[in-house]
């Protein structure tokens, strides 16, 4: 049984079919990569899954539940967390606060008890803090705990964003270009983390990525898109050598 399934999803912006009848299944525990040239519709698929865009056709099914009509703010609570291509952290808050915001969907305390900070709120806070600390230890972010995000280097911010998504305790993690802006070493580090996330935390990952080394290193299956359509789906090697994929990237005779 698949964890996540997209059935013929499509979205149109004006006359452009950004995503056109795309279907795929993601099995529990796998790393599923989406590749494709710029403008192929990769990030758009993520925005459809995290419900920021409304698909004009098709269905999204997560754990046998149709999430096509679920509002965006409830997606995290269902167990789907994401990162962003160009980092969307809360820049004027500390790393700790950022990760704690990742715990938001697990917060159950009432408004009034928060205003007067009841012992129950304190207990809940300490519990969140403990979970956040696990993530900090997992990603080795200890030394930046109380640093403002705005003062952190780019490479670290990228890791913080991954950490924030992990704080949601997701079942499905959407990584939008985890290696963009990172150097070779940092990219390799990111690869190791993705493997750890899959093996140690048992989280299923869908990843949009351009760096083929990273894709080969971590993915179980790869889907190639071009102009919003699926052109190949299979193991990293199959997809990389697929004639359609080669044509999309390099060009060639019709």
């Amino acid at each position, binding site marked *: 049984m698949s964890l996540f399934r997209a059935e013929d999803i499509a979205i149109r912006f004006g006359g452009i079919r950004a995503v056109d009848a795309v279907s795929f299944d993601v099995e529990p525990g796998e790393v599923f990569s989406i590749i494709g040239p710029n403008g192929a519709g990769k990030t758009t698929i993520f925005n459809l899954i995290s419900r*920021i865009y409304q698909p004009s056709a098709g269905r999204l099914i997560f754990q046998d539940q149709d999430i096509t009509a679920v509002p965006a703010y409830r997606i995290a609570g269902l167990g789907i967390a994401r990162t*962003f291509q160009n980092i969307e952290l809360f820049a004027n808050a500390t790393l700790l606060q950022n990760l704690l915001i990742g715990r938001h969907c697990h917060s159950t305390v009432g408004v009034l008890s928060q205003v007067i900070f009841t012992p129950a709120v304190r207990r809940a*806070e*300490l519990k969140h803090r403990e979970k956040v600390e696990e993530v900090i230890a997992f990603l080795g972010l200890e030394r930046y705990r109380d640093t403002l995000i705005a003062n952190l280097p780019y490479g670290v911010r990228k890791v913080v964003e991954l950490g924030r998504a992990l704080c949601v305790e997701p079942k499905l993690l959407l990584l939008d270009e985890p290696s963009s802006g990172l150097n070779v070493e940092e990219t390799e580090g990111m690869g190791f983390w993705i493997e750890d996330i899959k093996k140690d935390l048992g989280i299923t990952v869908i990843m949009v990525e351009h760096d083929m080394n990273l894709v080969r290193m971590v993915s179980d299956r790869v889907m190639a898109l071009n102009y919003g359509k699926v052109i190949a789906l299979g193991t990293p090697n199959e997809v990389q050598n697929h004639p359609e994929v080669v044509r999309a990237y390099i060009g060639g005779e019709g």
Partner: protein
Amino acid sequence: MRYLFKTDYRQDTTLWRHRGDLFWYGLLVVVLLVIPYVLSEFYVGELGGVFVFAVAGVGMMLLAGYTGLISLGNAAFLGIGAYTDAILLTHGVPLLIALPVAGLFTGLFGIAIGLPTLRMSGLYLAIATLAFGSIVGTVFQKWDAVTGGFDGFAVPAPDIFGVPIQNATGIYYLSLAVLVIVLWFSANILRTPLGRAMVAIRDSEISAQSMGIHLARYKTFAFALSAFITGLAGALFAHYVRFLAPDAFDVLLSVQFVTIVFVGGLGSLHGVILGALFVRLLPQFIAIMRDDLPFGIGRMPGLEPSLYGLVLVIVILFEPGGIYGRWIKMKQWFQAYPLKRRTGFRRQKSYARSERLR
């Protein structure tokens, strides 16, 4: 320099970083309690005014400084709170009930302005709230039956359990008590999921949403909270001025609240107090200096508002952290002396952000 060695998660949830904080805040409270016995009535009255404006400043700070929603209509909230409180008192409602009711009633108006402006931000929101402010101001003027129109509205002297609160000292203690409670509530909000959600909305709406934050709910909450607190300030204001005139709640007053927040330092409760001190004491300073300024500058009309404007511009240009930001820098400089780092407060250039999805 003090190095905090954290050994317990609880250290991150307390209001005091260490015992030194507790000591200094305690000392401040003691000094504030003693002041009416030491200073003359004039200064006690002025400080009372600072407290009233500080309460309103907290309302503005939670909205503009923490949720990133700018409002030029908070003077209307202050007015609604003031009239509600005054009208309730004339009907014989005791102050301790009228005060929170004035806040809650104003909070409803906060929801009313928050809901239709959910999709607005920045300038558009400022204009919408400005319009709200001037509509409410007109209602104050025209609805004579309730507000007394331009004849004004004499606010009855309140009492708490039979103890009359009429002179400057009474208002001073009442405002101080409300300010402390409001600050405590706000500090609590800021260390819980509620406050973090507000900060998240300020810094990135799209990822706030992806982290499970219901944007509409929290933005409306921020407006309601801001209106509630400003309404409380309004009730205090009514007793502070004792006579309500509808033209007191104009856009200039809203600009004063914005000035409190920006000059004090965006995103800090300390900044509110410093900003309120600045905004309330500047007119007094001008009054004292009036005769000593050359060329009759001191007697020119519009000197105050233009000075507010000038200071606001200077602060935004040269010290975006406000007075509190400058204080932090000075503290850092002395703590690290002589090892000053020129780049200590320079931030790394941020990279292009993803296209905004609103």
